[in-house]
């Protein structure tokens, strides 16, 4: 019933909503993390200046079996805290252009407060513990997030 995956294809919001819709749900919360336009480039610091390099895309890499295992652990923990009826966590790998989404979390709960809290928990924890890395592709250079 739950769906956790890493994928190169764009994230399908309609499929996600359909997957978490069920008669027992009163609230569905969905979070999409999107690649935000940015300028600054390899050196960082000087943002929004006219001639600064622009971010073109992000490139995601994962330690796939462990990333999936960690995502399953996070969802199991969320289920022990909130009455989640259905949940999906989909993360893209490879190139993600500006305005496209890299992560989609959607879940349903009997009541709305639970759906917000559980979804927020999942994205916050995913960003801390799931072994996925992004490389920022600027017009002048590429750099890993950890090089900042």
């Amino acid at each position, binding site marked *: 019933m739950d769906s956790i995956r890493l994928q190169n294809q764009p994230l399908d919001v309609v499929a996600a909503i359909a997957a978490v819709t069920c008669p027992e749900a009163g609230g569905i919360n969905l979070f999409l*993390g999107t690649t935000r336009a940015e300028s600054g480039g390899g050196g960082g610091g000087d943002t929004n200046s006219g001639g600064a390099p622009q971010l073109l895309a992000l490139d*995601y*890499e*994962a*330690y796939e*079996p*462990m*990333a999936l*295992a960690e995502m399953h652990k996070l969802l199991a923990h969320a289920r022990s805290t909130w009455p989640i009826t259905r949940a999906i966590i989909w*993360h893209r790998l490879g190139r993600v252009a500006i305005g496209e989404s*890299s*992560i989609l979390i959607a879940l349903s709960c009997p009541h709305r407060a639970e759906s917000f809290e559980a979804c927020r928990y999942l*994205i916050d924890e*995913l*960003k*801390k*513990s*799931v*072994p*996925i*890395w*992004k*490389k920022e592709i600027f017009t002048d250079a590429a750099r*890993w*997030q*950890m*090089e900042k």
Partner: protein
Amino acid sequence: MSSPIRITVRLFALMADRAGQREIPLSLRTSRPTVADALAVLHDLFPAIPWPTGTMLALNQSYTTAAAPLTDGDELAIIPPVSGG
């Protein structure tokens, strides 16, 4: 004297780029080797691998610590600060 154990070290992102390798087979001859022993050998072989603050370790796809014992066939992953989402 104990026989050596063989493990695989996995590198990702910046670390893999700099090492020019993503999987490194290691033989450990220490008696009752730990993760720390494997890291010492790794640093000898690849002294230039960057080690960002906050780098974590995983043994067979679960987070672990430097004190954890290793056995033959283990997969040790070096997890630089994650940035998914």
